[in-house]
Protein backbone atom coordinates (compact mmCIF):
# COMPACT_ATOMS: atom_id res chain seq x y z
CA UNK A 1 0.00 0.00 0.00
CA UNK A 2 1.27 3.44 -0.89
CA UNK A 3 0.11 6.46 1.05
CA UNK A 4 0.78 10.09 0.18
CA UNK A 5 0.10 13.11 2.32
CA UNK A 6 -0.35 16.23 0.22
CA UNK A 7 0.32 19.60 1.80
CA UNK A 8 2.90 22.35 1.71
CA UNK A 9 4.33 21.57 5.12
CA UNK A 10 1.69 23.18 7.31
CA UNK A 11 0.92 22.02 10.82
CA UNK A 12 -2.23 20.29 9.65
CA UNK A 13 -0.30 18.13 7.19
CA UNK A 14 1.99 16.94 9.97
CA UNK A 15 -1.09 16.12 12.05
CA UNK A 16 -2.63 14.15 9.18
CA UNK A 17 0.66 12.26 8.74
CA UNK A 18 0.74 11.38 12.44
CA UNK A 19 -2.89 10.27 12.44
CA UNK A 20 -2.26 8.09 9.39
CA UNK A 21 0.68 6.45 11.15
CA UNK A 22 -1.55 5.81 14.14
CA UNK A 23 -4.28 4.32 11.94
CA UNK A 24 -1.80 1.96 10.29
CA UNK A 25 -0.47 0.88 13.63
CA UNK A 26 -3.95 0.29 15.00
CA UNK A 27 -4.84 -1.81 11.97
CA UNK A 28 -1.53 -3.66 12.10
CA UNK A 29 -0.78 -2.64 8.50
CA UNK A 30 2.40 -1.61 6.73
CA UNK A 31 2.65 1.15 4.17
CA UNK A 32 5.07 3.66 2.78
CA UNK A 33 4.09 7.22 3.64
CA UNK A 34 5.36 9.91 1.35
CA UNK A 35 4.91 13.64 1.86
CA UNK A 36 4.21 15.68 -1.25
CA UNK A 37 4.95 19.34 -0.62
CA UNK A 38 5.37 20.85 -4.09
CA UNK A 39 2.29 22.92 -4.82
CA UNK A 40 2.25 21.98 -8.51
CA UNK A 41 2.55 18.28 -7.72
CA UNK A 42 -0.29 18.66 -5.22
CA UNK A 43 -2.47 20.42 -7.77
CA UNK A 44 -1.56 17.65 -10.22
CA UNK A 45 -3.73 15.37 -8.12
CA UNK A 46 -6.67 17.72 -8.68
CA UNK A 47 -6.56 18.74 -5.04
CA UNK A 48 -7.61 22.30 -4.18
CA UNK A 49 -7.46 22.25 -0.42
CA UNK A 50 -4.82 20.65 1.75
CA UNK A 51 -4.03 18.52 3.63
CA UNK A 52 -5.15 15.71 1.37
CA UNK A 53 -4.73 11.97 1.64
CA UNK A 54 -3.90 9.76 -1.33
CA UNK A 55 -4.03 5.98 -1.01
CA UNK A 56 -2.69 3.89 -3.88
CA UNK A 57 -2.91 6.83 -6.26
CA UNK A 58 -6.48 7.75 -5.38
CA UNK A 59 -7.45 10.95 -3.56
CA UNK A 60 -9.59 9.86 -0.62
CA UNK A 61 -9.81 13.05 1.42
CA UNK A 62 -9.14 16.78 0.97
CA UNK A 63 -8.96 19.81 3.22
CA UNK A 64 -9.35 17.95 6.45
CA UNK A 65 -7.24 16.51 9.26
CA UNK A 66 -8.77 13.06 9.56
CA UNK A 67 -8.71 11.30 12.91
CA UNK A 68 -6.87 7.95 13.07
CA UNK A 69 -10.28 6.26 13.14
CA UNK A 70 -11.43 8.06 9.99
CA UNK A 71 -8.22 7.11 8.20
CA UNK A 72 -8.83 3.52 9.31
CA UNK A 73 -12.14 3.46 7.43
CA UNK A 74 -10.40 4.60 4.27
CA UNK A 75 -7.70 1.94 4.24
CA UNK A 76 -8.37 -0.64 1.52
CA UNK A 77 -9.21 -4.17 2.59
CA UNK A 78 -6.09 -6.24 3.19
Amino acid at each position, binding site marked *: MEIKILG*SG*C*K*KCVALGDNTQAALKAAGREATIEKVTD*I*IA*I*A*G*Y*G*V*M*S*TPALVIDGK*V*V*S*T*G*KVLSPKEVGFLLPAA
Partner: protein
Amino acid sequence: MSSVFVWLNDQLLRMQWLSDLVTLLLRDVIGMDVGSRMGASVHFFLYDTVKIFILLSVLIFSISYVQSFFPPERTRRILGQHKGLGANIVAALLGTITPFCSCSSIPLFIGFTSAGLPVGVTFSFLISSPLVDLASVILLASIFNWGIALAYVLVGLVLAVLGGTLISWMKMEHQIEEFVFTAPVVSHDGGTITRRERLSYARDQVIEIASRVWPYVLIGVGIGAAIHNWIPQDLITGLLGQDKWWSVLVATIAGVPMYADIFGTLPIAEALVGKGVGLGTALAFMMSVTALSLPSMIMLKRVVKLPLLVVFATIVALGIVVIGYLFNATAYLFI
Protein backbone atom coordinates in the same frame (compact mmCIF):
# COMPACT_ATOMS: atom_id res chain seq x y z
CA MET B 1 -30.43 55.98 17.39
CA SER B 2 -27.57 57.42 15.41
CA SER B 3 -25.69 58.40 18.54
CA VAL B 4 -25.89 54.78 19.69
CA PHE B 5 -24.40 53.73 16.37
CA VAL B 6 -21.65 56.32 16.65
CA TRP B 7 -20.84 55.13 20.15
CA LEU B 8 -20.77 51.47 19.08
CA ASN B 9 -18.65 52.36 16.09
CA ASP B 10 -16.17 54.36 18.17
CA GLN B 11 -15.84 51.82 20.95
CA LEU B 12 -16.11 48.47 19.16
CA LEU B 13 -14.59 49.26 15.81
CA ARG B 14 -12.25 52.17 16.43
CA MET B 15 -11.63 51.01 19.98
CA GLN B 16 -11.47 54.45 21.52
CA TRP B 17 -11.36 52.73 24.93
CA LEU B 18 -8.12 51.02 23.95
CA SER B 19 -6.54 54.29 22.87
CA ASP B 20 -7.59 55.85 26.19
CA LEU B 21 -6.31 52.84 28.10
CA VAL B 22 -2.91 52.99 26.40
CA THR B 23 -2.71 56.73 27.12
CA LEU B 24 -3.58 56.10 30.75
CA LEU B 25 -0.99 53.34 31.06
CA LEU B 26 1.79 55.35 29.46
CA ARG B 27 1.03 58.57 31.34
CA ASP B 28 0.12 57.38 34.80
CA VAL B 29 1.95 54.09 35.14
CA ILE B 30 5.13 54.64 33.16
CA GLY B 31 5.10 58.40 33.37
CA MET B 32 5.61 59.03 29.69
CA ASP B 33 4.38 62.16 27.97
CA VAL B 34 2.14 60.93 25.13
CA GLY B 35 2.32 64.38 23.61
CA SER B 36 6.05 63.95 23.04
CA ARG B 37 7.38 62.42 19.87
CA MET B 38 8.61 59.27 21.59
CA GLY B 39 5.43 58.90 23.62
CA ALA B 40 3.23 59.32 20.57
CA SER B 41 5.21 56.65 18.70
CA VAL B 42 4.88 54.21 21.56
CA HIS B 43 1.18 55.00 21.81
CA PHE B 44 0.64 54.44 18.08
CA PHE B 45 2.58 51.19 18.18
CA LEU B 46 0.84 49.68 21.21
CA TYR B 47 -2.64 50.86 20.29
CA ASP B 48 -2.47 49.78 16.65
CA THR B 49 -0.84 46.42 17.36
CA VAL B 50 -3.39 45.41 19.98
CA LYS B 51 -6.28 46.77 17.92
CA ILE B 52 -5.24 44.91 14.78
CA PHE B 53 -4.75 41.64 16.62
CA ILE B 54 -8.15 41.88 18.33
CA LEU B 55 -9.91 42.71 15.07
CA LEU B 56 -7.92 40.10 13.18
CA SER B 57 -8.89 37.32 15.59
CA VAL B 58 -12.57 38.20 15.70
CA LEU B 59 -12.79 38.73 11.95
CA ILE B 60 -10.90 35.66 10.88
CA PHE B 61 -12.97 33.56 13.22
CA SER B 62 -16.27 34.79 11.80
CA ILE B 63 -15.12 34.73 8.19
CA SER B 64 -13.66 31.25 8.47
CA TYR B 65 -16.98 30.07 9.83
CA VAL B 66 -18.76 31.45 6.77
CA GLN B 67 -15.96 30.15 4.57
CA SER B 68 -16.46 26.61 5.83
CA PHE B 69 -19.72 26.62 3.87
CA PHE B 70 -17.84 27.35 0.66
CA PRO B 71 -15.04 24.84 0.13
CA PRO B 72 -13.28 25.28 -3.24
CA GLU B 73 -15.18 22.34 -4.73
CA ARG B 74 -18.49 24.04 -4.02
CA THR B 75 -17.22 27.40 -5.28
CA ARG B 76 -16.20 25.70 -8.51
CA ARG B 77 -19.63 24.09 -8.85
CA ILE B 78 -21.41 27.41 -8.27
CA LEU B 79 -19.17 29.14 -10.83
CA GLY B 80 -19.86 26.42 -13.38
CA GLN B 81 -23.54 27.30 -13.26
CA HIS B 82 -23.01 30.86 -14.46
CA LYS B 83 -22.07 32.22 -17.84
CA GLY B 84 -20.59 35.39 -19.29
CA LEU B 85 -20.40 38.52 -17.18
CA GLY B 86 -22.56 36.92 -14.51
CA ALA B 87 -19.88 34.30 -13.93
CA ASN B 88 -17.22 37.01 -13.52
CA ILE B 89 -19.38 38.84 -10.99
CA VAL B 90 -20.07 35.68 -9.00
CA ALA B 91 -16.35 34.83 -9.13
CA ALA B 92 -15.42 38.26 -7.79
CA LEU B 93 -17.99 37.93 -5.00
CA LEU B 94 -16.88 34.43 -4.05
CA GLY B 95 -13.31 35.72 -4.00
CA THR B 96 -14.23 37.87 -1.02
CA ILE B 97 -15.04 34.91 1.20
CA THR B 98 -12.27 32.52 0.17
CA PRO B 99 -8.69 32.03 1.33
CA PHE B 100 -6.44 34.79 2.52
CA CYS B 101 -3.23 33.12 1.49
CA SER B 102 -1.79 33.52 -1.98
CA CYS B 103 -0.29 30.05 -1.66
CA SER B 104 -3.71 28.49 -2.12
CA SER B 105 -4.34 30.39 -5.34
CA ILE B 106 -2.33 27.99 -7.52
CA PRO B 107 -4.24 24.82 -6.58
CA LEU B 108 -7.46 26.78 -7.06
CA PHE B 109 -6.30 28.04 -10.44
CA ILE B 110 -5.46 24.52 -11.60
CA GLY B 111 -8.59 23.03 -10.07
CA PHE B 112 -10.86 25.61 -11.71
CA THR B 113 -9.19 25.49 -15.11
CA SER B 114 -9.00 21.70 -15.36
CA ALA B 115 -12.71 21.54 -14.58
CA GLY B 116 -13.36 23.71 -17.63
CA LEU B 117 -14.07 27.10 -16.06
CA PRO B 118 -13.19 29.96 -18.43
CA VAL B 119 -9.83 31.62 -17.80
CA GLY B 120 -11.43 35.04 -17.37
CA VAL B 121 -13.71 33.79 -14.61
CA THR B 122 -10.80 32.24 -12.75
CA PHE B 123 -8.86 35.49 -13.01
CA SER B 124 -11.80 37.47 -11.65
CA PHE B 125 -11.60 35.18 -8.66
CA LEU B 126 -7.81 35.46 -8.41
CA ILE B 127 -7.90 39.27 -8.46
CA SER B 128 -10.67 39.63 -5.94
CA SER B 129 -9.43 36.99 -3.52
CA PRO B 130 -6.38 38.79 -2.03
CA LEU B 131 -7.70 42.29 -2.70
CA VAL B 132 -11.13 42.29 -1.15
CA ASP B 133 -12.12 40.23 1.81
CA LEU B 134 -14.56 40.82 4.60
CA ALA B 135 -11.73 41.36 7.07
CA SER B 136 -10.24 44.21 5.07
CA VAL B 137 -13.64 45.90 4.87
CA ILE B 138 -14.11 45.95 8.64
CA LEU B 139 -10.49 47.03 9.18
CA LEU B 140 -10.89 49.88 6.71
CA ALA B 141 -14.07 50.91 8.49
CA SER B 142 -12.20 50.78 11.79
CA ILE B 143 -9.20 52.80 10.67
CA PHE B 144 -10.90 55.20 8.25
CA ASN B 145 -14.69 55.04 7.99
CA TRP B 146 -17.56 53.07 6.49
CA GLY B 147 -17.81 55.19 3.34
CA ILE B 148 -14.20 54.45 2.46
CA ALA B 149 -14.59 50.76 3.29
CA LEU B 150 -17.63 50.31 1.06
CA ALA B 151 -16.11 52.32 -1.77
CA TYR B 152 -12.97 50.18 -1.55
CA VAL B 153 -14.97 46.94 -1.85
CA LEU B 154 -16.94 48.29 -4.75
CA VAL B 155 -13.91 49.36 -6.78
CA GLY B 156 -12.08 46.13 -5.87
CA LEU B 157 -14.97 44.05 -7.20
CA VAL B 158 -15.25 46.18 -10.34
CA LEU B 159 -11.52 45.73 -10.95
CA ALA B 160 -11.86 41.94 -10.56
CA VAL B 161 -14.85 41.73 -12.92
CA LEU B 162 -13.30 44.01 -15.55
CA GLY B 163 -9.88 42.38 -15.32
CA GLY B 164 -11.32 38.89 -15.77
CA THR B 165 -13.59 40.02 -18.59
CA LEU B 166 -10.69 41.64 -20.45
CA ILE B 167 -8.67 38.45 -20.13
CA SER B 168 -11.65 36.49 -21.55
CA TRP B 169 -11.86 38.84 -24.51
CA MET B 170 -8.19 38.44 -25.25
CA LYS B 171 -8.67 34.67 -25.62
CA MET B 172 -5.55 33.71 -23.75
CA GLU B 173 -6.37 30.07 -23.03
CA HIS B 174 -3.30 28.91 -24.97
CA GLN B 175 -1.13 30.94 -22.58
CA ILE B 176 -1.76 28.46 -19.82
CA GLU B 177 0.63 25.58 -19.30
CA GLU B 178 -0.63 22.36 -20.85
CA PHE B 179 -0.61 20.26 -17.69
CA VAL B 180 -3.15 22.56 -16.07
CA PHE B 181 -5.86 21.34 -18.44
CA THR B 182 -5.03 17.69 -17.98
CA ALA B 183 -5.00 17.67 -14.18
CA PRO B 184 -7.65 15.32 -12.86
CA VAL B 185 -10.82 16.79 -11.42
CA VAL B 186 -11.45 15.56 -7.93
CA SER B 187 -14.72 16.52 -6.37
CA HIS B 188 -14.64 15.46 -2.81
CA ASP B 189 -17.08 17.28 -0.68
CA GLY B 190 -15.54 16.07 2.52
CA GLY B 191 -18.95 14.78 3.55
CA THR B 192 -21.14 16.68 5.94
CA ILE B 193 -19.51 19.01 8.41
CA THR B 194 -20.95 19.47 11.86
CA ARG B 195 -21.28 22.82 13.54
CA ARG B 196 -18.58 21.84 15.97
CA GLU B 197 -16.19 21.07 13.14
CA ARG B 198 -16.90 24.46 11.59
CA LEU B 199 -16.15 26.18 14.90
CA SER B 200 -12.90 24.29 15.39
CA TYR B 201 -11.96 25.00 11.78
CA ALA B 202 -12.55 28.71 12.43
CA ARG B 203 -10.43 28.56 15.58
CA ASP B 204 -7.62 26.77 13.75
CA GLN B 205 -7.71 29.39 11.00
CA VAL B 206 -7.29 32.19 13.56
CA ILE B 207 -4.26 30.46 15.08
CA GLU B 208 -2.74 29.63 11.71
CA ILE B 209 -3.22 33.08 10.18
CA ALA B 210 -2.23 34.99 13.30
CA SER B 211 0.97 32.96 13.61
CA ARG B 212 1.75 33.62 9.96
CA VAL B 213 1.01 37.34 9.76
CA TRP B 214 2.21 38.67 13.12
CA PRO B 215 5.67 39.71 11.86
CA TYR B 216 4.07 41.65 9.00
CA VAL B 217 1.70 43.36 11.40
CA LEU B 218 4.52 44.39 13.73
CA ILE B 219 6.67 45.63 10.84
CA GLY B 220 3.67 47.45 9.35
CA VAL B 221 2.78 49.12 12.62
CA GLY B 222 6.46 49.94 13.20
CA ILE B 223 6.74 51.65 9.83
CA GLY B 224 3.42 53.35 10.53
CA ALA B 225 4.71 54.67 13.86
CA ALA B 226 7.89 55.91 12.19
CA ILE B 227 5.94 57.73 9.48
CA HIS B 228 3.55 59.05 12.10
CA ASN B 229 6.14 60.74 14.27
CA TRP B 230 9.67 60.65 12.89
CA ILE B 231 9.75 61.18 9.16
CA PRO B 232 9.37 64.89 8.32
CA GLN B 233 6.03 65.72 6.81
CA ASP B 234 7.68 67.73 4.02
CA LEU B 235 9.56 64.67 2.85
CA ILE B 236 6.40 62.57 2.60
CA THR B 237 4.18 65.19 1.02
CA GLY B 238 7.03 66.16 -1.29
CA LEU B 239 7.07 62.62 -2.66
CA LEU B 240 3.50 61.48 -2.25
CA GLY B 241 1.51 64.68 -1.62
CA GLN B 242 -1.93 65.32 -3.10
CA ASP B 243 -0.56 67.94 -5.49
CA LYS B 244 2.05 65.62 -7.00
CA TRP B 245 0.74 63.98 -10.14
CA TRP B 246 3.12 61.04 -9.78
CA SER B 247 2.11 60.16 -6.22
CA VAL B 248 -0.23 57.28 -7.11
CA LEU B 249 2.24 55.84 -9.61
CA VAL B 250 5.09 55.91 -7.10
CA ALA B 251 2.90 54.29 -4.43
CA THR B 252 1.79 51.52 -6.79
CA ILE B 253 5.29 50.74 -8.01
CA ALA B 254 6.69 50.83 -4.49
CA GLY B 255 4.09 48.28 -3.43
CA VAL B 256 4.90 45.59 -5.99
CA PRO B 257 8.10 44.11 -4.53
CA MET B 258 6.59 44.15 -1.07
CA TYR B 259 4.65 41.23 0.16
CA ALA B 260 2.37 41.55 3.11
CA ASP B 261 -1.12 40.98 4.22
CA ILE B 262 -3.71 43.67 4.25
CA PHE B 263 -3.30 43.60 8.04
CA GLY B 264 0.30 44.73 7.75
CA THR B 265 -0.32 47.43 5.16
CA LEU B 266 -3.24 49.15 6.82
CA PRO B 267 -1.25 50.86 9.60
CA ILE B 268 1.14 52.21 6.95
CA ALA B 269 -1.76 53.55 4.90
CA GLU B 270 -3.26 55.04 8.05
CA ALA B 271 -0.05 56.87 8.95
CA LEU B 272 0.42 58.10 5.36
CA VAL B 273 -3.06 59.61 5.27
CA GLY B 274 -2.38 61.18 8.67
CA LYS B 275 0.65 62.89 7.12
CA GLY B 276 -1.36 64.47 4.34
CA VAL B 277 -0.94 61.83 1.66
CA GLY B 278 -3.99 61.46 -0.55
CA LEU B 279 -6.40 58.71 0.36
CA GLY B 280 -6.18 57.29 -3.17
CA THR B 281 -2.39 57.19 -2.96
CA ALA B 282 -2.49 55.27 0.31
CA LEU B 283 -5.11 52.85 -0.98
CA ALA B 284 -3.15 52.31 -4.20
CA PHE B 285 -0.12 51.38 -2.12
CA MET B 286 -2.22 48.96 -0.08
CA MET B 287 -3.80 47.32 -3.11
CA SER B 288 -0.48 47.02 -4.88
CA VAL B 289 1.17 45.30 -1.92
CA THR B 290 -1.65 42.80 -1.50
CA ALA B 291 -2.69 42.07 -5.10
CA LEU B 292 0.59 42.37 -6.97
CA SER B 293 3.42 40.77 -5.11
CA LEU B 294 6.54 39.22 -6.54
CA PRO B 295 6.15 35.93 -4.63
CA SER B 296 2.65 35.35 -6.00
CA MET B 297 3.80 36.33 -9.51
CA ILE B 298 6.62 33.81 -9.32
CA MET B 299 4.12 31.19 -8.27
CA LEU B 300 1.68 32.07 -11.04
CA LYS B 301 4.51 31.87 -13.56
CA ARG B 302 4.60 28.14 -12.98
CA VAL B 303 1.09 27.70 -14.39
CA VAL B 304 0.72 30.48 -16.95
CA LYS B 305 3.05 31.66 -19.71
CA LEU B 306 4.76 35.02 -19.56
CA PRO B 307 2.43 36.98 -21.89
CA LEU B 308 -0.64 36.14 -19.81
CA LEU B 309 1.23 36.95 -16.61
CA VAL B 310 2.24 40.33 -18.05
CA VAL B 311 -1.34 41.03 -19.19
CA PHE B 312 -2.64 40.11 -15.74
CA ALA B 313 -0.11 42.29 -13.91
CA THR B 314 -0.68 45.20 -16.30
CA ILE B 315 -4.45 45.12 -15.96
CA VAL B 316 -4.28 44.97 -12.19
CA ALA B 317 -1.60 47.69 -11.97
CA LEU B 318 -3.50 50.02 -14.31
CA GLY B 319 -6.69 49.34 -12.37
CA ILE B 320 -5.00 50.23 -9.10
CA VAL B 321 -3.58 53.47 -10.54
CA VAL B 322 -6.98 54.51 -11.91
CA ILE B 323 -8.64 53.70 -8.58
CA GLY B 324 -5.96 55.69 -6.77
CA TYR B 325 -6.51 58.83 -8.85
CA LEU B 326 -10.27 58.37 -8.60
CA PHE B 327 -10.12 58.27 -4.80
CA ASN B 328 -7.78 61.26 -4.67
CA ALA B 329 -10.15 63.25 -6.87
CA THR B 330 -13.18 62.38 -4.78
CA ALA B 331 -11.58 62.14 -1.33
CA TYR B 332 -13.55 65.13 -0.06
CA LEU B 333 -16.66 62.92 -0.24
CA PHE B 334 -15.18 60.44 2.22
CA ILE B 335 -13.14 62.27 4.83
